[in-house]
C-alpha cells in the first residue's frame, strides 16, 4: 500500500507533467480513465496559476493578447510552478522569462513592462509598515548625519528600464491608443520609483544620478558614503524628496568603530 507521501509525490508529478504515469495505478477508474480524472485537477491547477499571472501582469496580457499570454504563461508555469499558496507572490521570474521568450522578440519592451508590473504588484501587496519617523530623524545631531543608514519601505521600489515602460504601461491600462502610438520605444533608459500612496500606486521617473543615489541608500549605504559616491547631485534636495515620499521605513546609525568593510 502506498504511503500518503508517495501518493502526493506521484500526483504532484502527474500535475506538473501530464506524461508522468506514477499515480495512475493508485486511482480507481470506475468508467473514467485515471488520466482523465487527473486532467481535471491539472486543468484547475494550471488555470489557477495562469489567473494569478493575469492578475499580476494585466498590461502585458493586453499587449500580447489573451491567447499569446496564456500560451506563454503555461510554458512558464510548467518550468516554474508556484511555491507559495499566496498567489499574489507568483511570477517573480515571469519578466525575465518574457524578455527571453523567442516568440516575443518583436516586442523588445515586453520584459521591461513586465518588470514594472511585477514591482507594482510587490508594492501593492507589501505589508503595511510605518513610514520613516521624520521627527526622530531631525533629532539626530548634525555630526552624526553622515552615519545615517536608511531602511527601505517594502511598499516602494526602484527599477531601471531600457524603454519608456511607464508610458507603455499607462497607455495600455488606460486603453489610450493615441498615447501608445506616441511612445518612442527607443527613448530610454529610464529609472522608475514605484510607491504606494493613499491614492493608489504612484510611478514616477527619476533622473539617472538621483536614482543611483537612491539605490545606494536603499542598499543601506551610510549617507556620507552615498553622497560621496553619487557625484553631481543636490544631495539635501533629493533626500528631502525621498524622506517624505514613503520610500523609507526607518533608519539607524552606522557604528563609529570598525565601520569599514
Amino acid at each position, binding site marked *: *500500500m*502506498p*504511503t*500518503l*507521501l508517495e*501518493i*502526493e*509525490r506521484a*500526483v*504532484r508529478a502527474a*500535475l*506538473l507533467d501530464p506524461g508522468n504515469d506514477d499515480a495512475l*495505478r*493508485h*486511482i*480507481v477508474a*470506475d*468508467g*473514467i480513465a*485515471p488520466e*482523465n*480524472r*487527473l486532467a*481535471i*485537477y491539472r486543468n*484547475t*491547477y494550471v488555470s*489557477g*496559476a495562469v489567473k*494569478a499571472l493575469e492578475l499580476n501582469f494585466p498590461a502585458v496580457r493586453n499587449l500580447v493578447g489573451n491567447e499569446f499570454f496564456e500560451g506563454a504563461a503555461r510554458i512558464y508555469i510548467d518550468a516554474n*510552478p*508556484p*511555491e*507559495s*499558496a*499566496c*498567489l*499574489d507572490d507568483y511570477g517573480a521570474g515571469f519578466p525575465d522569462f518574457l524578455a527571453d521568450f523567442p516568440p516575443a522578440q518583436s516586442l523588445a519592451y515586453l520584459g521591461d513592462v513586465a518588470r514594472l508590473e511585477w514591482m507594482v504588484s510587490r508594492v*501593492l*501587496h*507589501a*505589508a*503595511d*509598515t510605518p513610514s520613516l519617523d521624520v521627527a526622530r530623524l531631525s533629532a539626530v545631531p548634525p555630526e552624526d548625519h553622515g552615519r545615517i543608514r536608511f531602511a527601505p519601505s517594502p*511598499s516602494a521600489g526602484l527599477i531601471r528600464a531600457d524603454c519608456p515602460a511607464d508610458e507603455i504601461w499607462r497607455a495600455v491600462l488606460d486603453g489610450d491608443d493615441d498615447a501608445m502610438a506616441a511612445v518612442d520605444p527607443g527613448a530610454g533608459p529610464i529609472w522608475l520609483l514605484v510607491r*504606494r500612496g493613499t491614492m*493608489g500606486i504612484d510611478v514616477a521617473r527619476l533622473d539617472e544620478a538621483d536614482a543611483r543615489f537612491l539605490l545606494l541608500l536603499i542598499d543601506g549605504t551610510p549617507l556620507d558614503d552615498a553622497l560621496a559616491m553619487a557625484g553631481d547631485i543636490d544631495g539635501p534636495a533629493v533626500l528631502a524628496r525621498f524622506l517624505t515620499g514613503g520610500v523609507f521605513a526607518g533608519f539607524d546609525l552606522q557604528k563609529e568603530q570598525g565601520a569599514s568593510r
Partner: protein
Amino acid sequence: MMTSPKPSSGPVPASAGIGLRFPHHRAVAETAPAIAWLEVHTENYVGGGPSVSTLEAIRRDYPISCHGVGLSLGSAEGIEKRHLARIGDVIERFEPGLVSEHLSWSVSGGTYLADLLPLPMTEEALDIVCRNVETVQDRLKRRILVENPSSYLRYRHSTIPEAEFIAAVAGRTGCGILCDVNNIYVSAHNHGWDARAYLAALPAEAVGEIHLAGHSARRLENGRTILIDDHGSRVIPEVWALYEAALQRFGPVPSLIEWDTNVPALDVLLDEAAGAAARLTAFGKENGNADAA
C-alpha cells in the same frame, strides 16, 4: 487579542452570508448591503495594501469568516510553517468569527498545486490530517472548521468512507466541520455515493457552517457526466433540497453562498443568500424559533 483597540467583527450568526470577492469590495464598502456576514479567502489578505484596508473597514460592519485554501491540511510533509505564520497574522488582524480550511492537500515538495487535491481515505492519512489540524489550531490558538471537498477521483487503497473520515478528524482534534452541501452533491454524483447517508454520518454537534454553491456538468465521450465544483452559477434545486435536509440534521448554522468564477453582480449573490435565509427562517418556524435567520 483582548487588548486589541479594533472593534471585533464578532461571532458569525446562524444566518445567510456571502463570499466577499474583490469585484464587490467597493459595492459592499459603499452600499452596506443587508447581509448577515461575509467570508473571505484568507490567502487574499496576506500582507497589506488597499484590499486589506478595505476589509479592515468592512469588518467594522459585518462579522467575518476567514476561509483558507492553502494550508494543505493533508500534506504528508506537514504544515508549512511560513505559510501558517502568514495566515496567523491575517487571523490576528481581522479576528474573524470563523476560521476554516479543507480536507485536502495542495502542497508537495515545495510546490503549491493551486487546487484542493484528494486524500486517500486511510488510517495513515487520518493520523497525518489530525496532526496537521492540531498544528494549525495550536498556532492560531483557536478551533478551525474543516470542509469536505468535491472530488473527481478515488484511490484504490482507500478504506474509510469520507464522511466517517472527517467525523474522526473532528472527534480526535476538536475541530468543527464545514459541511459543503454542494460538494457532497458533486462527490456523491461522481462516485455513486448516497448524499443523505453522507449527511447522516456527520456528527451534528461538530457542524459549524454550511457552504452552498453552483457547479457545472461535463459530459464525457462515453456518455458519463462528471460534476465540477466551479462555483460559477446559482445553487441548483437538488442542492437546495440537500441544504434543507442538512438544516433538519444540524439545526440552523451560518450558511454561505460561494461564487468564484464569472462572479455576477452583488445583487445576484444577495438573491441567492435570500434563498438560504428563507430556508433558515422556515426551519426556525417549524422548530418554534421565530428568530432564526
